[in-house]
């Protein structure tokens, strides 16, 4: 058993799977000698060589397109896009090809690749380094979108994503890359995909969140508990497909539902989760479904970003509104 931060957990999962499976290759910008700008691939090139831990030219569409080519040849590429803000150059490749290779060829070829990227705000980064645009990917058929919220889940879910026979977008909440450590065994044990994780049991209110926002969500839940409001907290984790069973069962129990995320509100994954509850859980509800999200503005630069991201206080206020409805 060792202690890992989230970024160390990502590194441990990559290291484990590179050693366990010869078909795994890691590629991206600065993933080699530099070990990635956040050190996700630290020391991997030394251990596994330049052929399997590949520094690519600075070209995101190439990184994704090359991964597709490798995948059709039976490799399991894990591609890093340095920041989610640069993932759009790879979007065409992922959407037009990775997501449909299996379907277009009736299973003759497939695309078992992972597209990793750090996402989200709160680290005082420059422009284009703080967005949360997971919803754009979640809209696309044929892929999975996974977001971990703790070191242990990062480890288990990344292993699952690499082993999954279909393309996975794996978005890492960089604000909590080093926020906390967890102790677990680096034994190659994966977590299941396509399911949520219930982090806190409660009877009054269901709060669904993912990624770094679970920090504020859990803090708010603790403070609300002291005020007599008992929150059930669900880590969505699987952004696509959504495990609606877990959410609907929770809402049936609590009768109230709030979704917290740091993405812009309109067309967000929060909207999708809310629609599921509205469509199939309406009769359980005592109050409207609330979305606590970022605004439909450009993600502000660092001076204002704390006003953009949902705060613990904002989540608590929303919870009180729901209880008083």
């Amino acid at each position, binding site marked *: 058993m060792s202690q890992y931060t989230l970024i160390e957990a990502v590194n441990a999962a990559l290291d484990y799977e590179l050693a366990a499976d010869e078909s795994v290759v890691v590629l991206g910008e600065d993933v080699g000698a530099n070990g990635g700008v956040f050190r996700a691939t630290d020391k991997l090139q030394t251990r596994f060589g330049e052929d399997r831990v590949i520094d690519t030219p600075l*070209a995101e569409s190439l990184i994704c*397109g090359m991964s597709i080519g490798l995948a*059709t040849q039976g*490799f399991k590429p894990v591609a890093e896009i340095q920041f989610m803000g640069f993932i759009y150059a790879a979007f065409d490749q992922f959407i037009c090809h990775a997501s449909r290779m299996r379907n277009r*060829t009736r*299973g*003759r070829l497939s695309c078992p690749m992972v597209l990793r990227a750090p996402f989200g705000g709160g680290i005082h980064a420059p422009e284009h380094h703080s967005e949360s645009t997971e919803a754009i990917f979640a809209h696309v058929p044929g892929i999975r979108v996974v977001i971990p919220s703790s070191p242990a889940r990062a480890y288990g879910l990344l292993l699952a994503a690499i082993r999954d*026979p279909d393309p996975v977008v794996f978005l890492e909440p960089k604000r909590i890359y080093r926020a906390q450590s967890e102790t677990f065994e680096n034994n190659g044990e994966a977590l299941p995909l396509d399911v949520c994780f219930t982090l806190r049991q409660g009877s009054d209110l269901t709060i669904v969140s993912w990624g770094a926002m679970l920090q504020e969500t859990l803090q708010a839940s603790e403070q609300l508990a002291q005020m007599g409001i008992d929150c059930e907290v669900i880590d969505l984790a699987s952004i696509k497909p*959504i495990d609606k069973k877990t959410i609907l069962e929770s809402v049936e129990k609590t009768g109230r539902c709030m979704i917290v995320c740091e993405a812009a509100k309109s067309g967000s994954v929060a909207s999708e989760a809310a629609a599921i509850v509205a469509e199939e859980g309406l009769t359980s509800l005592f109050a409207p479904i609330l979305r606590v999200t970022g605004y439909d503005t450009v993600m502000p630069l660092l001076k204002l970003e704390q006003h953009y991201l949902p705060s613990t206080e904002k989540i608590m206020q929303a919870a009180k509104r729901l209880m008083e409805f």
Partner: protein
Amino acid sequence: MITVAKFSINFSQYLDADSNLHLDNQALTQAGLDPARLLDYYQAMLLVRSYDTKAIALQRTGRIGTYPSCLGQEAISTAIGKTMQACDVFLPGYRDAATLLMRGTTMHELFLYWGGDERGMDFSHNKEDLPYNVPIASQCCHSIGVAYAFKLRKQPRVAVVVCGDGGTSEGDFYEALNAAGTWQLPIVFVVINNQWAISVPRAKQSYCQTLAQKGIAGGVASEQIDGNDTIACHIHLQRAIDNARKGNGPSLIEAISYRLGDHTTADDASRYRDQEELANAWKKEPLVRLEKYLLKRGDLTDAKIETFKQQANAQVKQSVESYLATPAQDKSAMFEYMYETMPDALKEQLDQLNQNK
């Protein structure tokens, strides 16, 4: 000032538009182009043209969907298929029926695909070739991954990727050339310059004197050939593929051709293309060029041509019949192969489809 680098692009043509051969017999034999081989090329091109004509007719009568004709590009496309080995991987655009047919894709499969049935891309023979690539030039980046896989496994295999003149303006084209050069991968890029990207002519696509020179920027050996000259296509593709297989790195061939048809059956080229230009292009087309040469040499006779045409038409007819007799997939087929194992969320929607909900 000193010159730190210097580049040039060579153009090769052996069989000119008037069917005169500018190559001695010894060189022809050395290239493996004996009379039997050239007749084989001629028959293959006849078959492709017969297929293409029938595909357009099937679209006009509502039996397949929108179809992109390959009329005029038979020489280069056939030569790619014939110079590749079975173990190589082909990455097509969408106008590459001729190459796919040479690679083993059946005509039945091609009709199925253009008829709107995904099973047409489940190639029964060339199983590792990529499916038709409709977005432009993105296949060039896939070829990097395919060739990188060959290199990692130390396999003597080659990836051959095709795009058009329009495709050379795409970012993916440049990104792929740059990576192919950087890693010296076993890839042959073939730019089939058919002069038209739908309605935009070659001159408006780029100020470059040649499209081949774009490869030079990526560190890729690049040249231009007459893409309607079967002999040049064969010799230069064979050389590029052999070089890649031997580990001598990637190359790019710009094959000068002409799109004699509309962009697709949904297009009307007379809106933007000069009739005189088209008439001139017909004088340079590849099939008649090879036919006249073979007639001149006595390797072909009018009677033989007639027999070959009948054979080609009969083969196409048989494929059309088998295509038209293929039952449509069940509507639930759209849910198949989305994922290896269908997620619960999708199973629920499949039930809705089946219950017409």
